[in-house]
């Protein structure tokens, strides 16, 4: 075991996997010589050489589409998008090619790659270094979209993604990179990409979130217990597509209340889908309307501190909605 940060866990997973399988290579802007803008790919170049750790031209489209072709031809690429805000030039590659290749070839051509995408706000990154655009990709059948919230998952889910036979978009939250530490195994392990994780058992209310806001949700749940005696069950979504709806609905069947917390803005976010599934399939279980804590429907996270604070979900905002649900 070792006490590591979220970003160390990512780096550890990359080292271990690249050692295990020669087909794995890393490609992206600044990933080689510099070891990544945040150092997620630190020391990979010295350990694995320039054929497996490649500083790409500044062109997200070909970073992803070349990974599709290379994966099709037997490699296991792990390309990186330095900021999720810059993923749009690769939109055709991700949604039209990667998501559809297996389908359009009836399974005869596939592209198992893991696209690491750095995302998320709360770091004074401004409009174009803060976005949480996970939903764009969660909407695409054919893609596995995952977003770990702990160092244990950051390592185990990345390793599982690299070994998965599907194209995986791995969203890593930049605010978590160095803000949390956890004791994790230094040897090999993988996480189940098909399952949510119940982070806190509870009986009065089900709360669902992922990424950075998962931690805010947990803090809010503790305070709800202390201040109001309300016992919140906290589910870490982990996989945004395909969603493990059974774990969520089993919990709703137990608690009868559902609150969804997301850093993304409100309209057609991941919470919309979870709410729709709960309304369709667990209607009889609900004692209160399904409620959401989300960012407002504005185009991106504004830079100025008070504006960003207004935008981001907080423990207080989450508690207010949990109280409203519990009291309904």
């Amino acid at each position, binding site marked *: 075991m070792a006490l590591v940060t979220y970003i160390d866990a990512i780096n550890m997973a990359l080292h271990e996997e690249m050692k295990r399988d020669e087909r794995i290579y890393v490609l992206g802007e600044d990933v080689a010589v510099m070891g990544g803008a945040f150092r997620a790919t630190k020391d990979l170049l010295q350990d694995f050489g320039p054929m497996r750790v490649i500083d790409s031209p500044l062109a997200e489209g070909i970073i992803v589409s070349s990974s*599709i*072709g290379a*994966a099709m031809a037997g490699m296991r690429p792990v390309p990186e998008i330095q900021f999720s805000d810059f993923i749009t030039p690769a939109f055709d*590659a991700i949604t039209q*090619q990667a998501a559809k290749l*297996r389908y*359009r*070839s009836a399974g*005869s051509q596939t592209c198992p790659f893991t696209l690491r995408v750095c995302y998320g706000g709360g770091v004074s990154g401004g409009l174009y270094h803060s976005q949480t655009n996970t939903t764009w990709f969660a909407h695409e059948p*054919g893609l596995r979209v995952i977003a770990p919230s702990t160092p244990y998952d950051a390592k185990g889910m990345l390793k599982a993604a690299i070994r998965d036979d599907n194209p995986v978009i791995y969203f890593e939250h930049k605010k978590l990179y160095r803000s949390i530490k956890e004791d994790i195994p230094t040897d090999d392990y993988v996480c189940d990409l098909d399952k949510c994780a119940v982070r806190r058992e509870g009986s009065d209310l089900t709360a669902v979130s992922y990424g950075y806001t998962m931690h805010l949700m947990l803090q809010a749940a503790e305070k709800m217990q202390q201040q109001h005696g309300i016992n919140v069950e906290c589910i870490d979504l982990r996989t945004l597509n395909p969603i493990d709806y059974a774990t969520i609905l089993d919990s709703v069947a137990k608690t009868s209340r559902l609150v969804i917390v997301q850093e993304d803005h409100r309209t057609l976010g991941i919470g919309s889908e979870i709410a729709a599934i709960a309304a369709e399939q667990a209607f009889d279980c609900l004692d209160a309307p399904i409620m959401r804590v989300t960012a407002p429907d504005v185009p991106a996270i504004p830079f100025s501190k008070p504006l960003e604070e207004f935008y981001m979900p907080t423990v207080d905002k989450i508690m207010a909605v949990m109280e409203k649900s519990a009291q309904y």
Partner: protein
Amino acid sequence: MATKAKERTETTASLPIPVEKMKQLYAMMLRCRTMEERARILYKQSRFSGNYYAAIGQEAIEVGAAIDLRPSDCVAPSHRDFIAGLIKGVPLKSLFSQLYARKTSPDQGRSSPAHGGYAPLNIITPASTIAAQWNIGTGVALALKMQKKDDITMAFCGEGATSLGFWHEAVNFAAVLQLPIVYVVQNNRWAESVNIKYQMRNEDVATRAAGYGIPGISVDGQDVVAVYRVVQEAIERARKGGGPTLVECKSYRWFGHSEIDPAKYRDAEEVEFWHTQRDPIPLTEEYMRKHGVWSDEEKQQVLDAFNKDLEEAIQFAENAPWPEPVEALDHVYSFSIRERALELDRKTWTPQALKKM
């Protein structure tokens, strides 16, 4: 950096390529023409639906470029490269099953007609988004280089595709990493209804190669021998680690963008000129006659044999089973989603408290 290929020779000097290769190129063009003419008729007869994008009149490009590819070489086709399958050796039954969207097609009825791939021969199943296969093929070339193989990718596109940003991302990437790929632009002067003069300022697509520091060459796309020789050189360079080449083949799109496009936006005289004066098949016949290697009998033999196979393939496709409707749920992931999709429609949860009562 771009250079013009030599004018077609009218001398009786010895052939620039072996006689057998010449005959092979000619016979393959004839098969491509025969197959596509038939496909157009079948479409017009509503024997299959969707659409068809013929490369009739442009056969010299695809045949000259791809005739000597290995099965292990990758081909990245566009929507107008259905004949790439025939040249690379895809069974006719598979090709026509693809047009007919039957269960027996390589994609089991998923892709639009003429968007055909074939995994056993490394033909990428193309998307309709223009230049997508250009990019994916570049990735295949990256893998081939990493795997230290001497196989290559041959990517095809039209001149319209060269206006897209990610067309350029791919060429630059392949140039920087010196990937084993041959880029073949089929400049047929029309991107749907848009003439090349609205597409680009420069006369030759091949000049774009200079911007990426790779060889670029323009060649007469109606001259199968010229295309063959130029592309052979590019293939050789790619196999030996010399990096990518951009080959522009100047041609003309004989018909509309697809079978539903009457192409009324074009000058009839221009169309007539290309049909009557620049058809690569009679041009090649004439060339072979001049070199004394032409035989009417051999032509007939090629046609007879191919027509027989063609009839069989069409019959096979017409009688082939349709996919089962529920197969629409298959091949989304490496695991099946059938159960999940059906459960999402019908399963409901009841409160746990009620269950205990």
